[in-house]
């Protein structure tokens, strides 16, 4: 039952945001709904981690280990984004109408994001993924500038093209399921009949869904829309797009892995993953816009997760789940830090930002923290997850893949930190004593709260979370 409540909460906040009740009601309702959804998600996740099933509507809405992990991340990022929006959008929205427009759409977007992990019927899953794109496109275009409109257009065109290709994949998957003699069409039902499904149908369905949803994940070479969309949207939305929207599309692709009975599938996954990591790590070096920097880093991390899935075995799958977790919390933090920087300096160009730590100590510190954390420096969470992937790679005897992964991550580390270092500590041109900028209280509070899990998970993994990750990893094995 709690799953239905989690789904309804953002819709309720959306309805409240529709009403003209002043500039404070919509942010408050959104924040309240997001926090409540997060608390309920923690409860449901603990339930799942304890080995119990959470079912709201049998065969339609339920939660297993993988779903619970993604639901937890979606609601967490939804909460931090809602809190950050309070201060950020008060600065950015020109009128109450625009502010309400923002909150209506961001709540709908959160609703679609929550729907993905809790729905277990694959056809409806397709709709949920498609809704995440439809509800976020007008948010990407929110600023109504030339750049944001162009980004939104590219975004929606690529999203729907991917969705249409994936639709045929899902129809063929359903065909395979019926041919295999399946009864209840859910992810579990699919796994149960996987040995009876004709391999050629499963292979074709997987290929179509990989290409279609790969566009939504942002695998190279269909990543071109991602840096545009993820840099043009308002920063809290970027945090949701990069932190969890790419992850939920990847979630659906990963759900199909246990169904595949092909030889060399691991090698294919490794190749796709490593191409994304490699290309993105080099593209990171040449960016001029710091939000694009983090967007390319998302492409890189999606590649890392796919590589970890390709390493396979319990260790690789656990590493993939851990990377999903650490990437979501860290990348959403990075975009919030980028939003704080944007509030302080009002430009997105890396070259125009120098000595940020003097202009705005809070934004500078957050940007440095985010940069170090996402690049994978110890003792942050991403370091731990990447380390566990290397370990799994070596244990599985994937020496070449692990070496390449380490090399690319090293290049990306250099790429991220070179830019961040210049922005934070560089010598400012012109005025040597710039006036200090004060950030809104809610923004600073969000940055502090969002930093806690990144620090804590770097040194300590609570037992229930470990259980949840193990159960999520089990969803990937045959």
């Amino acid at each position, binding site marked *: 039952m709690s799953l239905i409540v989690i789904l309804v909460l953002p819709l309720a906040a959306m309805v409240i945001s529709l009403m003209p009740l002043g500039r404070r009601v919509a942010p408050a309702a959104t924040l309240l709904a997001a926090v409540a959804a997060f608390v309920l998600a923690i409860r449901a996740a603990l339930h799942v981690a304890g080995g119990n099933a959470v079912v709201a509507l049998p065969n339609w809405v339920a939660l297993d280990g993988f779903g619970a992990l993604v639901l937890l991340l979606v609601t967490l990022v939804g909460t931090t984004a809602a809190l950050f929006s309070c201060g950020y959008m008060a600065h950015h929205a020109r009128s109450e109408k625009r502010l309400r427009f923002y909150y209506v759409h961001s709540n709908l977007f959160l609703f679609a994001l929550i729907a993905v992990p809790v729905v277990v019927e694959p056809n*409806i899953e397709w*709709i949920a993924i498609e809704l995440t794109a439809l509800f976020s496109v007008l948010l990407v*275009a929110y600023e109504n500038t*030339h750049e944001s*409109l162009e980004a939104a*257009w590219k975004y929606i065109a690529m999203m729907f093209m991917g969705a*249409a290709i994936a639709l*045929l994949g899902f129809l063929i998957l359903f065909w395979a399921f019926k041919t295999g003699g399946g009864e209840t069409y859910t992810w579990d039902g699919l796994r149960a009949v996987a040995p009876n499904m004709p391999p*050629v149908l499963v292979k074709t369905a997987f290929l179509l869904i990989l290409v279609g949803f790969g566009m939504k994940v942002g695998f190279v070479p269909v990543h071109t829309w991602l840096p545009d969309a993820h840099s043009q949207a308002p920063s809290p939305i970027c945090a949701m797009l990069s932190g969890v929207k790419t992850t939920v599309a990847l979630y659906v692709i990963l759900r199909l892995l246990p169904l595949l009975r092909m030889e060399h599938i691991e090698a294919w996954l490794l190749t796709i993953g490593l191409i994304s990591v490699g290309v993105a790590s080099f593209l990171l070096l040449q*960016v001029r816009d710091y939000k694009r920097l983090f967007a390319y880093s998302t492409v890189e991390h999606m590649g890392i997760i796919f590589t970890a899935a390709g390493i396979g075995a319990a260790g690789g799958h656990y590493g993939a789940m851990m990377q999903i977790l650490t990437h979501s919390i860290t990348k959403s933090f990075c975009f919030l830090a980028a939003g704080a920087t944007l509030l302080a300096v009002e430009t997105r160009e890396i070259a125009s930002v120098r000595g940020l730590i003097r202009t705005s100590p809070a934004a500078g510190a957050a940007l440095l923290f985010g940069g170090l954390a996402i690049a994978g420096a110890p003792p942050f969470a991403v370091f731990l997850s990447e380390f566990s992937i290397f370990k799994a790679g070596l244990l599985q005897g994937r020496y070449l893949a692990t070496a390449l992964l380490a090399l690319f991550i090293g290049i990306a580390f250099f790429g991220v930190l070179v830019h961040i270092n210049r922005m934070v500590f560089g010598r400012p041109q012109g005025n040597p004593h710039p006036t200090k900028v004060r950030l809104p209280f809610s923004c600073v509070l969000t940055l502090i709260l969002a930093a806690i899990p990144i620090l804590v998970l770097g040194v300590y993994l609570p037992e229930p979370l470990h259980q949840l990750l193990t159960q999520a990893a089990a969803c990937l094995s045959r």
Partner: protein
Amino acid sequence: MNLNSETVALLGNLNALAGGLFLLCTFGMVATRQVQGCLRLFIAQALFLVLSAFLLSGLLHSRHVFAVGIINLISKPFLVPWLLRRTVRSEVYSRREIDQLINIPASLLIALALAIGGFFLASPLLRVADGPYVAVNLPIGLACLLLGGYTASVRREAVPLLLGLLAMENAAFFAGVAIVPELPLIAELAIAFDVLMLSFIVGLLTRTIHEHIGTTEVGALTALKEETKP
């Protein structure tokens, strides 16, 4: 209702005819230069999808496929053009010349290659197919999916680009009515809703682009290209 063998053969042939015309309409969408013409071809394509759905619902005794036909009959030929007319301004609608990335004869050659590729891709799947209708609908659906994707990639004008995307969705369904006659009704309704939402949002976005930038030639938007900056 039980059909005698002659009727079955006739309906099967009619379905094959609908498939051929469906493919022809998709080729037409690659070739046409006018926004209005593109829209008419899209509507015709959707109508052939509906025809195929009705024929197959009789042949396969499937109420679900009949429902797919009804849903498509309402949404594609009526609601999508209506939504576009409501959101996009008429001058966008009546534009004649569409500037294309690749010229039309070359496009048609590429489209031909893609169509053959689609049939080729479908052939291993047909070995596990049981019904005779899959052999018609699946290759045509796959080929039209590729053609729609090609149309959407080379068009630079907003509305024909959207129509290319919707043609891809039509193509997926054209294959779908034959391969999965028992698709749950809720999924069909949700997909139709999704198509309408997409048309509405793209229409809104096109209008905003027209108002702010003064063009609907979305292919000409290059502000975000990294290499063009100083």
